[in-house]
């Protein structure tokens, strides 16, 4: 199959690679450039485990083709906190509020929460629940995820 050259900035690094036109962005991230922090949980774009920011907006990277990211900027959970050993307030809040257990949904959940708080810095419980509807978690029952997002809003000055 033909390969197409693309140039994508991921977590601050520019990657120039050739991919099949059908290659999913998440497979490009995981298998072509080794950014394995972003994961795949389903094949119907229901679970949101693969959520990343594309030009600052959250997308499910299983539902975007790598070629669609050509010339664009991708931010994954691995690039969220600037610098080594740094923590983004959302990451801090998830740890503090026990908003994760197995951690598999976490990369997507954190990136979805980052996007949610960009849009709405002071969300109500209902707005958080509605806002994270596209991200599934089987461990936490969402109770502490909601608390985490509320606490992140507080840390980020929204409350």
């Amino acid at each position, binding site marked *: 199959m033909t390969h197409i050259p693309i140039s994508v900035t991921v977590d601050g690094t520019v990657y120039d690679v050739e991919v099949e036109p059908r290659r999913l962005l998440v497979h490009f991230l995981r298998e072509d450039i080794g950014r394995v922090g972003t994961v795949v949980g389903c094949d119907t774009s229901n679970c949101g485990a693969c959520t990343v920011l594309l030009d600052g907006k959250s997308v499910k990277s299983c539902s975007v083709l790598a070629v669609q990211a050509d010339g664009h900027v991708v931010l994954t959970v691995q690039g969220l906190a600037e610098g080594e050993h740094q923590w983004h307030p959302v990451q801090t809040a998830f740890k503090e509020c026990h908003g994760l257990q197995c951690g598999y949904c976490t990369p997507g959940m954190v990136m979805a929460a980052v996007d949610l708080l960009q849009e709405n810095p002071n969300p109500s419980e209902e707005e958080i629940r509605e806002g994270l509807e596209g991200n599934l978690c089987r461990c936490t*029952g969402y109770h502490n995820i909601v608390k985490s997002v509320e606490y992140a809003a507080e840390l980020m000055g929204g409350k």
Partner: protein
Amino acid sequence: MTETLTDANANPMGRPLRRKEDARLLHGQTNWTDNIQLPGTLHMAILRSPMAHAKITNLDVSAALKRPHVVAAFTAKDLGDLNGSVPCVWPVTDDIQMPGFPALAVDKVRHVGDCVAVVLATDKYAAADALDAIEVDYEPLPAVIDMEAAIKQGSTAVHDAADGSLGTNVCYEFPLKPQGDGAFDAAVKAAGDDVVVVKRRFINQRIIAGYMEPRAVVASPMGMSNEMTIWSATQIPHVLRVLLALVTGMPENSLRVIAPDVGGGFGGKLQCYREEILAVQIARHLGRPVKWTETRSEDMVASHHGRDQIQDIQIASTKDGQIIALKVDLIANMGAYLQIITPGIPLLGMFMYPAIYKMPTYEFNCVGVFTNTTPTDAIRGAGRPEATFAIERIVDELAAELDMDPMKLREMNWIKHEEFPYATVAGLTYDTGNYEAATAKAMDLFGYDALRAEQEQRRASGDPVQLGIGISTFTEMCGLAPSRTLGALKYVAGGWEHCTIRALPTGKIELVTGTSPHGQGHETAWSQIAASILGVPVDDIEVIHSDTGRAPYGMDTYGSRSLAVGGQAIKKAAERLVEKAKVIAAHQLECSVDDLEFIQGAFRVKGDPAKSQPLAAVAFEAFSAHNLPDGVEPTLQAEATVDPDDFSYPHGTHLCAIEVDTETGKSKIRSYVAVDDVGIQVNPLIVEGQVHGGLACGIGQALYEGVEYDSDGNLLTASFADYLIPSAADLPSFTTDRTVTPSTTNPLGTKGVGEAGAIASPPAIINAIVDALRPMGVTDVKMPATPENVWRAINAGKGGAQ
């Protein structure tokens, strides 16, 4: 937001420490099995049966071999002896029917998703593409889907006589009749006029585990040495190693099984799966690493399902509400084949139907049935959620029949706190419990009386939105398990757990556990237990697990056993380490062992606190070995393997208020209170998280989830688009609290918590919905209680068609 791991000096037991695991997980620095990319890897793709039951009349992989990047392709015939059979380790009766379960189907397929052929390619997409080139023809056979039809005379057999089987779909029949056959009827007859009997049929529907990380396996052979390293997204690396050795014939000591980061399990990764066997056998055959990661759609047809029981249950009481007898007849769906503990799952529930209630008579019978569906096995609770659902539902039905408050009926019949230890009619001995205390706390948090008043008011005003109150006063057995008990139940393995603790020369501690966490926070909690005994900071302890090369002994993680059983091994090993160190410290301090006390990580001479020796200094002496007492060997480590004396019995009272729109059938949880008694808590933050997750799982079963097949055996819920795992928008916040009644079956006083929420919550939800609708003639609502199922129940209550 208070305590962190920096509080080094305080005893860490019982404190809500933030988890050690989280930094990595929150920064994407994880090691899931699918991350592993070894040089020369072949990606395995699997052709699965689209038919529920069929003969394979033609199968040809030659065209697939010509596809780009394809290196090999195999059918069962090609694999020959390498095509292993999936093991079942729990033959529950002497005459159980145990048909073979070949990894690749031989001549016949028996459920949608059965493995037919595999392709190995150097590229994942290419492997999947090449499946299209495999030629296969099927001759359809009648699909056996309905359990009751399956056990009728003349039904098509899933494993028929021509296959060397018995030609019946009855897998086994297991009775437990401690008071003899017919004891229920005899008890009812003996009660004369003073008896009320309530009989119900409940359907505990089939569900999936729903872990977020799909299953994956990488098998890497080491060429001439015959060694093999296997990474698998499994809950049971230790058990898997034994089983893979038995299935493949490879020497066990050449196999290393690693469960790296595992993204949830919930019982669904408690298995020796056919795909694991295929990856190992093909890697061995080709001498190259083989990798397989399932798609979610594959998971839905191929990973084991759970529950799926028809429960006929009868309860008898006196007219004033004293329970006198219980009778349970189960039909349990095995699916098409037996997997690791498929037949035993309903029997884990067998002991729990009498639950927290005193009763003199109990009869149980279970018939296991083969059908042309995905095999069933353990999912969060495994047998106990089914039992708890049936008993808690029928106690509510009995209360309605007696016109009693359902909580009052429970109080009248439950075991009082002063009656423990209590030998139940099912043959267990509950060590401790305090149902009164948990219930009092839950009632208080819930505002029971005010909600009942609101319910009356809504009923009186004919509000289209009715309010229901659901109760579940549950208990469960966990901490699997005393090995002798398992042996008596014909389970092949034991239920012990192991821990080794090493004090390294620099004073750091390595804690090697046989448990295998996949979200439970063992690294944090186990550190807390050991730190509290060794007096070292929690952060100085490294917990090593889930790798048979580094942690060779273990029985892994399932059945809420890790703390209740594994915790005992940690405590014992840590105490042994201190005893061993004390001998060296006494020599260093030139005193008798009896003169030493061990306080906050240092040995001190009694009455002379200035003379002390920290554990780290003793560890360095054990390493340098320059001045050890005679007869003491260098290195400082201790180990313990503990077989539990008995199960432990967490309990709790869950209360749920639900608003039901009687016009649309839509239910909305208004409040959910869970007061659990899980004994001593090592880390209440983790305990609470486990309760939340269990509740979500149980509420999922009650309101949203259900595996559906059509009459031809096609799976209708074959993706997350069709099978509804609840999202944040589908669930409420929970009110949780605990009472603490320490268990006496283990020295830490702990019970289990991982399954509690999933066991307790389904009846609380359904009881609430039925309670809301009872004045409309509704006596049951089918799970999941979707708006459609609720609407149908309302309509049936009115006398309309369902």
